[in-house]
């Protein structure tokens, strides 16, 4: 068990050692986002710009235009404050800025609704030039951090606070925009991202005992989404479930639905937050209350299979 923010923080430090152009800007949350590992070793390339998300994003844009590669780090929920700056300053100008949004999803827990980013996929996905990545575990978070540093243009990296199971392999390279099939199956396909990947694997395990062979796809890149893998899943398994710690509107489920509807219609069930704000509680309690657990995914798989023609 390890949090994706930890994988990110460690990889950012390693990146810093390799590449002198990496600059880190923080919204006074470097202890929480793990950007402090970088700060301790490279104080001259680290700037805490205070609690000012818009200014941080804009400053990063200026740095990028001088050839530097800024990573800007805050809570996913607070980047919503900078949306206009992301749109014009970062995306319209196609700035080489990497945005790390930690403490995403409802599992951040007791801090409550204001700290629980559940809308960021929808918001970021809508912006031209923006890429969106959400690693499944700390291993993948580390690899993704290094890979996105080499991708020109703005990238949003969604990370979590809580320790989650390690489900990806150290040796397997992270390929931006290419989903990973973690478990083969032909009864239905679960497409998940972030923490929901491990929940999906548990659901698939449970389902296999009932004779249902669920494929599990780790869709770590939400944008550009791996259309081929979605179409393949629709053709080979005929039914799909998406699972994400995000609102049902505009997130991974919507992205998958867009591909299915246009390319290869197939029944789809979405495991997601139902257009509601979160609340205080322990992460696990909230995942249960908001129907984001393995059992909810397993139920959705059973339901979608019944809808197969």
């Amino acid at each position: 068990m390890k949090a994706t923010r930890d994988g990110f923080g460690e990889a950012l430090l390693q990146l810093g050692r390799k590449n002198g152009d990496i600059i880190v800007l923080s919204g006074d949350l470097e202890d929480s986002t793990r950007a402090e590992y970088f700060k301790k070793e490279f104080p001259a390339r680290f700037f805490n710009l205070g609690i000012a998300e818009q200014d941080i994003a804009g400053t990063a844009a200026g740095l990028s235009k001088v050839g530097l590669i800024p990573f800007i780090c805050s809570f996913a929920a607070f980047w919503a404050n900078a949306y206009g700056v992301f749109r014009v300053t970062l995306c319209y100008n196609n700035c080489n800025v990497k945005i790390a949004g930690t403490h995403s999803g409802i599992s951040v827990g007791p801090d409550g609704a204001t700290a629980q980013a559940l809308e960021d996929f929808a918001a970021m996905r809508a912006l031209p030039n923006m890429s969106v990545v959400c690693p499944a575990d700390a291993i993948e978070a580390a690899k993704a951090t290094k890979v996105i540093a080499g991708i020109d243009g703005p990238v949003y990296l969604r990370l979590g606070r809580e320790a989650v199971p390690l489900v990806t392999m150290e040796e397997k390279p992270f390929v931006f925009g290419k989903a990973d099939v973690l478990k083969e199956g032909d009864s239905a396909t679960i497409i998940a991202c972030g923490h929901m990947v491990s929940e999906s694997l548990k659901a698939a395990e449970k389902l296999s005992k009932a004779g249902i062979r669920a494929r599990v796809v780790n869709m770590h890149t939400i944008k550009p989404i791996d259309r081929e893998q979605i179409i393949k899943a629709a053709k080979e398994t005929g039914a799909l479930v998406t699972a994400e710690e995000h609102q049902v509107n505009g997130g991974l489920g919507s992205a998958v639905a867009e591909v299915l509807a246009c390319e290869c219609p197939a029944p789809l069930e979405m495991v997601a937050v139902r257009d509601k704000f979160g609340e205080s509680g322990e992460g696990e309690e909230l995942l249960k209350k908001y129907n984001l657990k393995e059992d909810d995914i397993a139920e959705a798989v059973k339901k979608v299979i019944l809808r197969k023609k």
Partner: protein
Amino acid sequence: MPDIKDFKQKARQLRIDILETIANAGSGHPGGSLSCVEILISLYFYKLRPVPQNPAWADRDRFIMSKGHASAALYTTLASCGYFPKEELRNFRKLGSRLQGHVYAGVPGVEFSTGALGEGLSVANGMALGAKIRKKDFKVYCLLGDGEMQEGQVWEAAMTAAQHKLDNLCAIVDYNGVQQNGPVAQIKNEEPLAGKLRDFGWNTLDINGHDFDDIIKALDLSGKIKDKPTFIAARTIKGKGVSFMEGDPGWHGKAPNGDELSKALEEIKEKI
């Protein structure tokens, strides 16, 4: 010191170009374009090190036009510097043209696309900070509108520039006192504007933004103050040079028709 007589002639020509460009497009922002003419001429023909033949030169000074709606003023200035042919101004705001309605980085000489107010000073800060990190001696200039100063991000950026001692940065406000729906003082008063920035830790100057001597002195001074960014409140007149446009919010974002254009050009040419 440059030839002020020549600069005055340049200003008259630029005002003609701006009006013709906007009238030809059928839309645009004459008021805030005409008010910043002397500022842009002082920057591009005196202070900046413009390199029309090599706009990507790494050591060039940077200019961020944060008030992106005054695109006609910047495009006509760049054309007169030789960044692109003046005839191209006929394509302003037309389909397929790189001369987009708001300042667009696809135009040679433009550093950064703007148009959503309040965003440019942070970008300028980033470039100034980047120069320090890279140990480059280029300077960064940023022109903001006074209405724009009502955006919160500007004040976040103002704190950042002072905190990080960005003495290679100069922010200029085209303080024409009029925004789209009326006088700034009646909508969200900013006075004392220079005083506010002084309290934020900036070196500040309050000048006549149509007086070349004033502007040039202020720009020269901005490079000499150590450890502080410089803020210039350049007092201007919206729609400067055309009597029926001056101080009238109605000319913030409206193109002159044929008659209005003739009248305006006649007035400017009379002064030559």
